[in-house]
């Protein structure tokens, strides 16, 4: 607009175009640099996410027209569908397992590795390696290892070792912890490296001081190491809480939610409803609900922090 105004007033031509070009450079050019990635993200993430809110209130099959049904999907989800409650419980069990086992393993290994000089790089690298492997390879490798007819467990079973004749992935009582174990095998080394980096940032004189005060290993860990890595630890507890409601890959690859729904989590329900039962509207409602759980987790952390918890 200003440029056209400038052209109709030759008297201003000396000053205005320069001002206008500078203005363009300052305000428009920076946006041109972010525009492509912004448009792609609107197309791939934000647009479909907003559409999901609408579709969750329809009876849409994924093809053709969608009839608006209000909150009927949510009503079915919360009050009529037993698989939703059971999947939610499995997510909570998953959360409990991942808040304890990998974090404990990561903390123990990192605090053992932190004082070591010889071979430190080698240990760090070797324990990190499972994290770079594809989930399909890890899943099938461990499925074979623990299979009672073949693999290591089968080999032990043939030699009469008690407790090795169980199909851990085929029983409703053991399937979920077993998949969590396999996922954790790949995951915990990553936590260890994060914790180790945090521990190496703790000033060494704090450890010296603890030693001079006669602190034992446990006291040193509790009073120096843990407070020192608190930001990393709290952040990973937050991320674990979020990811536990979204977990998908290992369960889908290994059991697809079976046997008899014993390893079904919310993401599996979304996948099955969308691509196997052709209930896209219902799947969208589950997706929205998962996002709400994530929102609740984040809100809890924000509220605790506002209340003055040092997290």
């Amino acid at each position: 607009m200003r440029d056209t105004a400038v052209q109709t007033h030759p008297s201003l031509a000396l000053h205005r175009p320069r001002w206008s070009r500078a203005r363009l450079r300052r305000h428009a050019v920076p946006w041109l640099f972010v525009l492509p990635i912004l448009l792609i993200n609107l197309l791939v993430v934000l647009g479909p996410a907003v559409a999901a809110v609408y579709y969750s209130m329809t009876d849409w099959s994924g093809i053709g027209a969608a009839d608006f049904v209000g909150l009927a999907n949510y009503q079915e989800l919360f009050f009529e569908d037993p698989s939703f409650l059971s999947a939610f419980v499995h997510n909570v069990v998953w959360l409990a397992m991942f808040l304890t086992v990998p974090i404990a393993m990561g903390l123990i290994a990192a605090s053992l590795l932190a004082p070591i000089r010889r071979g430190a790089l080698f240990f760090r690298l070797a324990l990190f390696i499972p994290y770079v492997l594809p989930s399909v390879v890890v899943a099938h490798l461990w499925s074979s290892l623990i299979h009672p007819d073949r693999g290591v467990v089968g080999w032990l079973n043939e030699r009469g070792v008690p407790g090795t004749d169980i199909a851990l992935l085929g029983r409703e009582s053991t399937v979920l912890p077993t998949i969590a174990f396999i996922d954790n095998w790949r995951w915990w080394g990553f936590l260890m490296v994060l914790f180790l980096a945090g521990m190496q940032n703790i000033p060494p004189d704090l450890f010296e001081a603890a030693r001079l005060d006669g602190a034992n290993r446990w006291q040193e860990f509790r009073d120096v190491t843990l407070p020192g890595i608190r930001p990393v630890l709290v952040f990973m507890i937050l991320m674990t809480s979020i990811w536990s409601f979204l977990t998908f890959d290992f369960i889908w690859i290994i059991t697809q939610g079976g046997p008899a729904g014993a390893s079904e989590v919310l993401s599996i329900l979304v996948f099955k409803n969308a691509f196997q039962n052709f209930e896209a509207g219902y799947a969208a409602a589950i997706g929205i609900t998962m996002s709400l759980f994530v929102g609740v987790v984040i809100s809890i952390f924000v509220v605790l922090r506002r209340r003055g918890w040092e997290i």
Partner: protein
Amino acid sequence: MNRPFGRGRDLSLTPNYVVLVALLIFSLGPLAIMVLNSVKSRAEIGENPLGLPNDFEWSNYARAWEVGNFSTTMVNSGLLVAGSVVGVLVLGGMAAYSLAKLNLSGAGALMLFLLVISSLPIHLFLVPLFVLWREIGLLNSFVGLVIIYIALNAPLGIFLLRSYMLQLPRDFEDAARVDGAGEWQIFARIVVPLSWPGFLTVGLVVALAVWNEFLLATVFLQDESKFTVITSYQNFATRFSRDWSLTSAAAVMMILPILVIFLIFQRRFIEGMTQGGMKG
């Protein structure tokens, strides 16, 4: 042994090494078993699933390459990785440059937007995205999946590249600006060459994420000729689950490129992935 202070426990690291070696065996043992089993015959695995192979059955690899259709899937995965890495580096690098160097009005809002976008669960937008891609003909298309990978990996890339570019001295840019260079020239000729380590880190992390990706590749590439090494292995390993030597040989071929590149660039990988974990 009279020590004035403490119990002298700063001396003995032996217990540390014992536990760490046990954890090392836990982490690498299964991989070692996989590599050993990849050269055993099917008959031998049943007898001897743990030990060294008696005979080296190298033909397992040729058979796995053939049956697993690796000549196609490796190319497919390579194309997806290349497209996604280039896309994230170019488009993410541009955005990072704008955020770090150009006084973008609304930079704070944009950062918040990227943070929110990158924390939305995939399962929230998966179904509408699938239908949208089907409607506009991007289903079963590498371009279609690359666009999705770029969108999902760009926020992390932008955060890492932005913090890298913020550390660069302004002198070179200012000199170029005085000489009348445009912003694109400054970006392409000065800022990118100076921040190449940041670009390398982001490129490696994105390449690994795309090479290993499972869910989206399963949903968006359903044509068997378009399968990636990952989605094809899922079918292959399920079909041949009884043939452990074959699935092991295929797995070794899939992870060998990853491990070689990871070991060469391990410091950049670990730095990029841990910072990504902390920020993304």
